[in-house]
């Protein structure tokens, strides 16, 4: 546990010490929605895309397409309290109620747009809404819902679809020596096929030079965000999880103009570095506990983190799944499709080596151990979601491994990304108080075992 002084200057004391450089990055995604709507009004096509860890984003951008991400838009619905009617609409059209909250809200949105409003954007939709899609781009990365829910949207839109591929494997099988070669070959062929499909759909050729330029920008953005991540290991933690979530879209799915985003991330790197140099914390209270949040946050209740910050809880890091890893060296690769294949594959497979060294079967579970050690974490806030299998399934293992291997305790708080009824902030705060004693106990246990935090 750490105990540091509060920042010297706090004009009006807010619990969380937000990074100034976060705001322009946050605005990029909102501007994207506005620009996409504008483009749609001018007759230009809009793509609805799933997060695809870049193998789809960059070809779309290189073709000059406007992209919105319903997953991201669903977080807006949740945070603005406007998701409920869309969830109800999904239920009323026969989709099971236990499906992904993001999926249900998108389905409900589509139902309302196409079945009730004749193709018009629902007027109650925040930031102007999402324009009708001209292409639905699903993805097989991380969760089944990412392609099944877009396939299901065919019920509302007679719109072309594509499903991107990505191998998904645990530690042992994912570390086989000959695997990389045929996986890269597979993904390279898939990227080529996707680009050919785009060319056929749009009746124009890919601008390969532009694609190369964007890949280069992507690598530089990820190098910068990776450096920011590394700096976050400092004590006190210089960047709060809420700042990460607010600023992640331009690196997670390249929201906004990538050149602009790169400059904004460089500004953020400089600001975080300044905080590290001057030991400025991400909360305006003494950092008592260094906490990691896993997995997706309760978007509808983010103010809850202020109450925890007041108690000295600094959320110093978050789940691996939203961070771009250190990018691979692509300098010797000439084929842009192979570059993309390697860039995307790296997100899934760069962690297998660590997991193998730690002898842990699930590389995502191993990431939490790595984070616990590197960030000197006092406790993990685990947030299993009632409607997200992908984010919740492994959390019991995470809990068990953290305690067994590192004596790091976890606070288990059930909730949801969309449905605010299942998250109880007051009860959680009461449990957090008791958890502080647990963290105190395990801090002593770790020290007694020779660990240094």
């Amino acid at each position, binding site marked *: 546990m750490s105990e540091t002084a509060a920042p010297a200057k706090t004009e009006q004391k807010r619990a969380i010490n937000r990074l100034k450089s976060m705001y322009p990055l946050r605005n990029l995604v909102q501007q994207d929605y506005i620009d996409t709507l504008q483009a749609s009004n001018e007759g230009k096509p809009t793509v609805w895309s799933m997060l695809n860890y870049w193998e789809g984003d960059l070809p779309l951008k290189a073709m000059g397409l406007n992209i919105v991400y319903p997953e991201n838009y669903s977080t807006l619905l949740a945070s603005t309290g406007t998701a409920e009617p869309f969830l109800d609409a999904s239920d009323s059209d*026969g*989709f*099971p109620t*236990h*499906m*992904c909250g993001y*999926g249900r809200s998108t389905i409900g949105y589509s139902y309302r747009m196409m079945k009730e409003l004749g193709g018009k954007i629902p007027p109650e939709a925040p930031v102007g809404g999402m324009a009708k899609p001209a292409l639905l781009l*699903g993805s*097989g990365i*991380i*969760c*089944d*819902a990412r*392609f*099944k*829910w877009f*396939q*299901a949207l*065919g*019920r509302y839109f*007679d*719109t*072309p*679809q*594509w*499903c991107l*591929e990505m*191998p*998904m*494997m*645990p*530690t*042992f*099988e994912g570390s*086989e020596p000959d695997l990389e070669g*045929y996986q890269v*070959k*597979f993904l390279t*062929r*898939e990227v080529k*096929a996707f680009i*050919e*499909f785009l060319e*056929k*759909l749009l009746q124009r050729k890919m601008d390969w030079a532009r694609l190369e330029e964007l890949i280069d920008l992507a690598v530089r953005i990820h190098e910068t965000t990776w450096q920011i991540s590394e700096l976050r290991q400092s004590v006190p933690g210089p960047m709060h999880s809420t700042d990460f979530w607010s600023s992640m879209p331009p690196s997670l799915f390249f929201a906004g103009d990538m050149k602009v985003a790169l400059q904004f991330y460089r500004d953020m790197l400089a600001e975080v570095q300044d905080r590290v140099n001057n030991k400025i914390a991400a909360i305006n209270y003494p950092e008592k506990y260094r906490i990691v949040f896993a997995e997706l946050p309760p978007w509808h209740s983010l103010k809850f983190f202020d109450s925890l910050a007041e108690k000295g809880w600094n959320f110093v890091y978050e789940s691996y799944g939203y961070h771009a890893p250190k990018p691979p060296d692509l300098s010797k690769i000439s084929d842009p499709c192979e570059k993309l294949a390697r860039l995307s594959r790296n997100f899934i497979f760069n962690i297998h080596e660590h997991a193998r060294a730690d002898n842990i*079967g*699930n590389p995502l579970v191993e990431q939490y151990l790595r984070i616990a050690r590197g960030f000197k974490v006092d406790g993990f806030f685990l947030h*299993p*979601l*009632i*409607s997200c*299998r*992908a984010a*919740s*399934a*492994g*959390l*019991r*293992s995470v809990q*068990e491994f953290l305690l067994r291997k590192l004596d790091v305790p976890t606070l288990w708080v059930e909730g949801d990304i969309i449905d605010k009824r299942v998250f109880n902030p007051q009860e959680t705060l009461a449990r957090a108080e008791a958890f502080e004693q647990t963290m105190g106990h395990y801090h002593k246990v770790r020290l007694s075992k020779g660990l240094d935090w």
Partner: protein
Amino acid sequence: MAIAINKGLSLAHDIYEDRGRRVRELRKAGRKTIGYICLYPPVEIITALGMVPFRIFGNMSEPITLADQVSTTVVCPFLRSIIDLGMKGKFDFLDGVVGAHTCDIGAGIIVQWRDYVKDAPFTHLIDVPHTDHPPAVEYFAGQLNSFKRHLEEYAGQKLTDDKLKKAVELHNTQRKLVRQLYDLRKPDPPLLTSAENLEVLVALFSLPVEEGNDLLEGVIRQVSERSDRPGRKKARLLVWGPVFDNTSLFKLIESAGSSVVVDDTCVGTRAFWADVKAPYDLQALAQRYLVDIKCPRTYRQAEPAETKRDYDKDLDSRFNYIKKAIVDWNVSGAVLQSVKYCDTHGYEVPNLRHYLDTLGIPSIYIEHDYSERSLAPIKTRVEAFVETLG
């Protein structure tokens, strides 16, 4: 000692009631036993290496207790049941376990098995692509090669072309016999009940393929000649959905005044409808498992890379095999069932119901948590549904 053959339905029932019996005997006699989860691990490779494939199911009658320590409750209760049983030592007769990335949670089961069950010295996960794109089929063949190589190491022998060919022929024979078994439910009334049919299928998943084929021949002969046929019912139903390995749902539906005459489930037709086509190599296995098995876990399109999409055409391309079953088995209604938290099937439901509507087939959707307890409230709904079929 080989199992007694040609005892037909009573033998199938006995094996259904004690699935591990024969596998335990064989293991004692020195055969290796390899459990597998879901439809996608290719049983032909296991058989060809002289091992006994055993499909792992859960147990709807047994409350999940230990698995809650290692798995959240908002994931597939069928898979949680499997881990629960594993943690309780109920699969201690298996030398190995093979899984496949047929869904996210299913893929995670192998990791949990390694971490928390630990009985089996051999474990392997086969990655299954999400589409049937040609590069995906080739990649999947590579995955089957990895599995083959790993199992060869464990078996201490090489898989020759001849051994694989012989195994494929045996399994193709079994598939053909199962299709003949299903033909016995085409008449009205059908010659066997859906519960009897399921007991036979579950028995097949618990026996070496040769013994399963003997069992099937005996059952088909017995049923073809039986005098105690089920009576004629008000409706002839198709049951759709993910795994259902317990006769209770079929008994419930049939007790509501209907006959289940055919299914589209992964314990039923999906496991047996498609043959491996010649040449019997890994590419042919990849084609059979990834492309020819019709499970919602695979993303398909009416035409590759189509730039103009039509909803009805899309549905027909994905579900026309169901239309064929409806015609061939003279189906009058459909029961869509799914275990809770199954994303791959859940997203399918409204679209499949729409497709069935266009065919004039009424349908009902029911959801359960893979426990016998959860089926009780469903009975009233099924009765009301059958009543509407007139």
